[in-house]
């Protein structure tokens, strides 16, 4: 009994330490802020026009650099994220964004993984009940 009690106690101690370290890590986590972070985020969402599947942040193709300049200029002019992405869509079409629109058919893309997640949970419950 003492050994089992020891296991519980050592696990409780560990759980407390885990919570402490997690709290410390969360409070000290860097906060990305400012227009540089915004530009970086936008650049990672926009496809490099002349590459197949790189973002403009990743590519050094001329077309990617041109788009990066435009994004930086638009952020400096005070446009919102949506306005900037919409203006790019107006020139290039929807395919300039690395993710399709979430409305309409695009929702299917995100519902798929959710269904898989639900299937996992449902399967686990079924197995747990069967015993």
């Amino acid at each position: 009994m003492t050994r089992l009690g020891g296991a519980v106690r050592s696990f409780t101690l560990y759980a407390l330490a885990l919570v402490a370290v997690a709290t410390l890590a969360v409070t000290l986590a860097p906060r990305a802020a400012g227009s540089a972070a915004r530009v970086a985020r936008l650049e990672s969402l926009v496809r490099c026009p002349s590459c197949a599947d790189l973002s403009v942040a990743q590519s050094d193709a001329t077309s990617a650099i041109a788009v990066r300049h435009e994004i930086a200029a638009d952020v400096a002019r005070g446009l919102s994220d949506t306005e900037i992405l919409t203006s790019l869509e107006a020139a290039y079409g929807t395919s300039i964004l690395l993710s399709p629109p979430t409305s309409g058919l695009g929702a299917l893309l995100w519902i798929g993984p959710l269904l898989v997640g639900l299937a996992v949970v449902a399967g686990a419950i079924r197995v747990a009940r069967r015993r």
Partner: protein
Amino acid sequence: MRRSVALSSIAVLVVVAALTLFLATRHPVTGATEAPSPLLGRLAPALAGRELSGGRFDLAAERGHVVVVNFWASWCGPCRVEAPDLSSAAWQMRRRGVVVVGVVFNDTVAAARAFARYYGSLYPSVVDPGGVIANRYGVTSPPTTFVITPSGRVAATLLGPVSTAQLEAVVAKVAS
């Protein structure tokens, strides 16, 4: 006896059959296709710059003419395919007042000049340092061709290599 394996196998087979049918009816992209560009019907973005041969080109000065704008690069395979056709189209349509202009896309001046010389281009090509013009036109991959009306609006966008006949048909439709 439980039938779950049979039922799920049949369900999977139905889904896969639908997927197969869908994929089997997709066609690979060959030749130029008219694409629904967001620019259609709108005023063509500004296009001005130095030509490979040294002169200056300005789209604004070409009002009153149908203008064919072709984005190309020396490294692009389909551009090699369409280069002779573009030249012959430019030559045949010049008497009808149609202007053909190339824009060099994401390429070095030296390579572009060699390309134009090799294919004996019969139309001027504008260099586009920094890809500013391509960005305004939303060009993603060469060759991309825009047809612009005499009033300066984008009337058609063609993705992929164009043929002389196809270009003449589109221009005739725009001019009428």
